[in-house]
C-alpha cells in the first residue's frame, strides 16, 4: 500500500503507459528480440546511473563519470593488450580501482574546497579525458586485438531463443550483473548507516554533522562508489561491444542524469531510490530505442532526451518546490 503512494509507483505507471502506447504504434515492440536488446542497452547506462543516483542523493551532481569510465576501460584494456593478459577478475578489479581512485579525487576536492560539484567534476572530467587521450593514446582497440576473455564474457547469455529462421538471440547475462549491483546498492542505502548518512547529508549537511556523521567519510563513500561503478561499467561496455574506444561516452552524461532525474531523484539531495532509477533508465532507453519503431527519425533523439529531462525536472520541481519567499 505504501508503495502505491510513492513516486516509484508513478514512474512505474508512466513506464507501463509508455510501453502500451509504443506497442500500439508498432506491435514489433513486443517481440522478444526487441525486449532483450532493450534490456541489454540498459546495462551500462544503468550501472552509471546507480553512481549518479548516489551523488544526487548526497545533493551533488557528477559529470565526470563518463571520463572515469573511459579511463577504467581504456587503461585496463591497453595494459591487457600490452601484457597479453587474458583474464577477467584482475582487469575488472583494475577498472574498479581506477574509477574509485578518480572518485576519491572528486571527493577530496569537493569536500576540502567546499566547491560546487558541477564545476569540480567538469574540471576533473577534462583532466582525466585529456590525460587518457594525450598520454595513453587515441586509437581504438578493435575486436581483433581485444582480449578473448573479455569478448567471451560480454557474449554470455542467460537465455537463448531461436527465431523462426533458425538464427538465435539471447538475453545478455550482463543484465544479471546490473540488477545484482542495483540490489546491492539498494540494500546498502536502505540498511547501512553509511547509506543513511548519504540521505542525511543530502537532506541537511549541517544536521548530519550535528548528529555525529563524519561528512568527509560520507562524501568519500559517495564519490568513490560512483567512480568505481563508472570504471566497472566502462570495462563492461567494451567487453559487450568488443571494442575499447577512448573517445567513447562523450555526451552520455546527459542521458544518465536524465534517467536518474526521471527516476525521481532530486538535485537538492535527500531523495531518490534505486528502484526509481532502474525504472527511469528503462524508460529513457526504451523511448530512445523505440523512436525508429514509431517511425521517427533518429536525428530527433537528442531533442527527445532533452525534452524528457526538462519534463522530469519540471515535475520534480513542482513536487519539492522550495518557495523562495
Amino acid at each position, binding site marked *: 500500500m505504501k508503495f502505491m503512494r510513492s513516486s516509484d509507483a508513478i514512474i512505474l505507471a508512466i513506464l507501463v503507459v509508455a510501453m502500451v502506447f509504443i506497442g500500439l504504434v508498432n506491435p514489433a515492440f513486443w517481440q522478444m528480440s526487441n525486449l532483450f536488446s532493450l534490456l541489454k542497452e540498459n546495462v551500462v547506462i544503468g550501472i552509471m546511473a546507480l553512481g549518479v543516483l548516489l551523488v544526487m542523493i548526497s545533493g551533488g551532481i557528477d559529470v565526470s563519470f563518463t571520463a572515469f569510465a573511459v579511463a577504467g576501460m581504456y587503461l585496463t584494456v591497453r595494459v591487457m593488450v600490452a601484457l597479453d593478459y587474458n583474464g577477467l577478475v584482475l582487469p575488472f578489479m583494475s577498472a574498479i580501482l581506477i574509477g574509485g581512485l578518480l572518485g576519491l579525487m572528486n571527493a577530496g576536492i569537493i569536500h576540502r574546497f567546499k566547491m560546487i560539484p558541477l564545476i569540480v567534476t*567538469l574540471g576533473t572530467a*577534462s583532466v582525466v579525458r*585529456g590525460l587518457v587521450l594525450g598520454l595513453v593514446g587515441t586509437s581504438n582497440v578493435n575486436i581483433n586485438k581485444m582480449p578473448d576473455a573479455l569478448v567471451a564474457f560480454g557474449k554470455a547469455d542467460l537465455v537463448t531463443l531461436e527465431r523462426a529462421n533458425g538464427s538465435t538471440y539471447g538475453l545478455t547475462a550482463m543484465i544479471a550483473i546490473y540488477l545484482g549491483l542495483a540490489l546491492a546498492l539498494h540494500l546498502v542505502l536502505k540498511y547501512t548507516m553509511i547509506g543513511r548518512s548519504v540521505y542525511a547529508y543530502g537532506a541537511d549537511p549541517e544536521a548530519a554533522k550535528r548528529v555525529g556523521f563524519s561528512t568527509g567519510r560520507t562524501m568519500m563513500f559517495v564519490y568513490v562508489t560512483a567512480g568505481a561503478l563508472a570504471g566497472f561499467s566502462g570495462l563492461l561496455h567494451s567487453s559487450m561491444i568488443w571494442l575499447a574506444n577512448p573517445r567513447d561516452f562523450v555526451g552520455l552524461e546527459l542521458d544518465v542524469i536524465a534517467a536518474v532525474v526521471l527516476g525521481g531523484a532530486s538535485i537538492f539531495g535527500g531523495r531518490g531510490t534505486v528502484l526509481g532509477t532502474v525504472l527511469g533508465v528503462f524508460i529513457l532507453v526504451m523511448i530512445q530505442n523505440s523512436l525508429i519503431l514509431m517511425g521517427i527519425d533518429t536525428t530527433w533523439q537528442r531533442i527527445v532526451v*532533452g525534452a524528457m529531462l*526538462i519534463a522530469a525536472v519540471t515535475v520534480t520541481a513542482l513536487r519539492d518546490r522550495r518557495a523562495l519567499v
Partner: protein
Amino acid sequence: MNDTNSTVTRRGLRNLTRGEAAQTNLMLAVVCVVVLVAMAMLRPSMFLSSYNFESMAFFMPELGILSIAMMIAMLTGGIDLSIVGVANLAGITAGTLFATMAGDGGTGALGLGPVTLGVVAALLVGMAAGLLNGFLISVLKITPILATLGTGQVFIGLCLVLTGGPAIVGFPSGWNAIGNGKLLGIPVPLIIFALICIALSVLLARTSFGLRLKLIGTNPKAAVYAGIKRGEMIFYSYMLTGGLAAMAGILLSARTNAAKSDYGASYLLQAVLIAVLGGTNPAGGRGNVLGVALALISLTLLSSGFQMMRVSNHLIDFIWGGVLIAVIALNSWRSWKRT
C-alpha cells in the same frame, strides 16, 4: 587592500588595486605578462610572430563572448550549459536561411541585405533560446543546471534536425568577412569582442540592470523583499546570455565558413573556467568583464604557447581542467584566509 596611505592619486590606478575583484585582475594581468615573457623566451621566433598574434585575435573572441555569457548567467547564481548549443543553432539557422534565400544561385552571391538578415535571425534565435531558459528557471523554478542541460540537448537536437547531421558549408562572403575580415588592420572579431566588452562592463558597473543582477545573486530572497522583479530580471539575464552565445556562434561559423551541431564542444568547459578564473562567483553576486577578458587572454596565450611546444590538444584539455581545479583551490584558500 591597505591603500589608505597610498599616495597614488590617479583614480584609475587606485581602483585597480582596491577590492577583491581588482586584486584578482591584477594577478591575472601579472599572469598574462609572465606567460608572454616565458613563451617569448622559449619560442621567440614563433610566438612573437605577428601571425601568431593575429590568429589568436581571430579565434579568441568566440570563446571570450561565450565566457562573458557564462558570467552573466553566474551573476544571478545560475549557470548556462546550453551556450554552445545556442551558438551552433544560431550559426545553423543563419546557414539554413542563406541556403533557402540563395536557392540554386549559390550563397556566395548573397549581398549585404541577406547577411544582415542572417545576423538578426541568428541573434533572435539566441534570444529565443535564452527566453526558454529564463522561462524554465524563473517561472517553472527548475535548477539552472538541469534546465540548461536539457535545453542544450534540445538545441543540439534542433541543429541535427536542421542539418541532418553533416556541417553546413558555404556562407555568403559578407558573412565570412565578419569572421575573417579586417577593419583598419584590426580583425573584425576582435573589434566586435572589444565593443561587447565595453558595452557589458558599462552595463554591469554603471546601470541599474547590472546592479540588480548582482543583488539578486547576492541574496535572491532579499532582492524580492527589496522590490526587485527577480523573475523578470532572470528572464533578461538569460536572454542576454543567449544573445551573446548567438553572437559567438555567428563569429564561429563566419570564421570557419561552416556550421555543425557539435562545433566548439570543448568551449563549454573553457567558458566556465574563464568565467571562474576571471573572478566570477558561481554562487552569484560577483563578476566583472575586465577579469573575464584578462583570464581569456592569459589562457589563450598559455594554450597557444603549449601548441607551439607541440603539446597535444588533449593535454591542453588536461591543463584547462587542472587550472580550473587549481583556481578553485586558490579561491577556497583565499576565502579561508579572509575569515
